[in-house]
């Protein structure tokens, strides 16, 4: 109860095609993250599933039932919006109770469900406040509360953390992941932040210009990106791409090496370079190095590594961790 299937779904706004035909299967209970740069169609795809936009072609099935022409309220999905979209004139209680009230539930049932949701989300003390009296994180939780009381077959999240500050974002990320463990309901989560995608997802769907570039578990995408786009998008800092003679030496048009798969030394190595910027984080050191014949390379060293701007370092890519791509950007 909670599998979603897209068959040949496409969407165009007038002349502009946002999503050329795509297929996607989402299993029951999965945490799926749609990730991609802004304008890649990930939010549109979510809105198509929610029913807030009509598909231009194809079919959407939830639990095997066709819902392509079903209005949003009848799809038994709940959505958390980027702006939270709380109702400003209603109290927290009123906001969370609203979907139940619309469904014509009993007063007693509503009270119980709202109370339960508030307890799960630590909102019990705030039930009588108005949204404007809450902090960003609390508003976020109210929006989630409004979604869970409906007991939907799937939750849809549209960049829910993008309005929060960095520290809160990490917290809410954990809370949403925990919620998923508790409820074991299908969740679809849209973000442009690959860290959110990597940390939360069971399955990541990487989108680019409306096309699905690759679908897989976070580590699958990390280990075996299918193409240059996925390789560059997943992982932070970005994978280094090296063209030219060095790539030829590996029988490829482009090779990619992740910053964490480069061994650094001040005395010897394969590539020689000069440190441009050194970012010392304590736990890691990121070095931006311009290397002779290879170009600019970012490298990560665990712990502290005391080099400064202008120092000479030697880099050696780890064996077996080099990704090879052909001229079309496909992985070899």
């Amino acid at each position, binding site marked *: 109860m909670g599998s979603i299937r897209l068959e040949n779904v496409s969407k165009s706004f007038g002349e502009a095609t946002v999503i050329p035909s795509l297929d996607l299967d989402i299993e029951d209970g999965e945490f799926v993250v749609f990730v991609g740069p802004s304008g890649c169609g990930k939010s549109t795809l979510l809105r198509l599933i929610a029913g807030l936009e009509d598909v231009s072609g194809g079919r959407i099935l939830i639990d095997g039932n066709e819902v392509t022409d079903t209005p*949003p309220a009848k799809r038994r999905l709940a959505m958390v919006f980027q702006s939270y979209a*709380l*109702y400003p004139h209603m109290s927290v209680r009123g906001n969370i109770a*609203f979907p139940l009230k*619309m469904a014509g539930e009993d007063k007693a049932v509503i009270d119980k469900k709202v109370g339960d949701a508030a307890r799960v989300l630590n909102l019990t003390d705030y039930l009588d406040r108005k949204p404007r009296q809450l902090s960003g994180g609390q508003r976020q939780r109210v929006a989630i509360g409004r979604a869970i009381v409906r007991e939907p077959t799937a939750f849809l999240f549209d960049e829910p953390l993008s309005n929060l500050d960095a520290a809160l974002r990490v917290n809410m990320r954990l809370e949403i992941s925990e919620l998923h463990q508790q409820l074991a309901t299908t969740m679809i989560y849209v973000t442009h932040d690959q860290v959110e995608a990597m940390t939360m997802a069971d399955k990541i769907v990487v989108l680019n210009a409306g096309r699905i570039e690759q679908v897989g578990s976070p580590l699958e995408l990390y280990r075996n990106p299918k193409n240059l786009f996925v390789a560059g998008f997943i992982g932070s800092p970005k994978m280094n791409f090296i063209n030219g003679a060095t790539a030829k030496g590996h029988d490829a048009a482009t090779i990619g090496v992740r910053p964490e798969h480069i061994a650094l030394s001040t005395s010897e190595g394969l590539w020689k370079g000069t440190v441009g910027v050194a970012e010392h984080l304590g736990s890691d050191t990121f070095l931006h190095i311009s290397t002779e014949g290879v170009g600019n390379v970012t490298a990560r060293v665990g712990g502290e590594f005391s080099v400064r701007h202008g120092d000479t370092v030697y880099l050696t890519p780890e064996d077996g961790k080099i990704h090879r791509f052909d001229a079309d950007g496909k992985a070899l």
Partner: protein
Amino acid sequence: MATLHTRSSARLMMAPAVIMLLVWMAVPLAMTLYFSFLRYNLLTPGLEEWVGFFNYKYFLTDPAFGDALVNTLLLVGGVLLITVIGGTMLALLLDQPFFGQGIVRLMVIAPFFVMPTVSALVWKNMFMHPVYGLFAYVWKLFGLEPVDWLASLPLFSITMMVAWQWLPFATLILLTALQSLDEEQKEAAEMDGAGFFSKFVYIVLPHLARAITVVILIETIFLLSVFAEILVTTSGGPGTQSTNITYLVYTQALLQFDVGGASAGGIIAVILANIVAFFLIRLIGKNLEA
């Protein structure tokens, strides 16, 4: 922000304007107040004398006063009812995307630019005239007896005219308020299972509350003093059926030349307006708080 020095010089600079405004306001009010205690009739010049509250007693016990008071409240209430409800519905309609939106919106606003005397004459002669008015034509089309609107339903007719004039104002303000409603909120309500009607009641109407309050307050100020429409159509008649307080003061002053009585009426009108304002603020003022 300002230092003591700049603040006092700012006060000095503003003083002429403030004093001017104060004088502009206070002197006529004081003179009205003063006249209201005099026997002051333009037909008997030179015989002014202090009569205390006689003018007030005379104005308040005038049988026309009670009618005028009721008519004023009915007129204000009726116009408010029509413009707020009609304005909300029109705003909802105009908020939908359709071809020629810009020109239609412009046309809807147009009545607000027509002078009250002109619009009243247009209504009187082109719509409500029992012989060649448009309404008479429609009535006859259905085989009905044409209604002599201004004679048989004078207050209702004037309410219609005034409401027609103020409908665009309400529509415009409510339309802008409607456009500021967050799109995601509407979508959230849709996902929560709210139909058109529930969405209107639970999401749109609360969002419009503040704008509706502003419409009611501003319109009340102007509607308490409706005059031109009455003067050019019914002249307050038949009898006192369409006389409001403003018109009663006018008949007192300029038809009966009783300046003292008219002044007393004016002061009473000011007091009445304040009473209405007091109740309005008590009733809907909380909507204005952020």
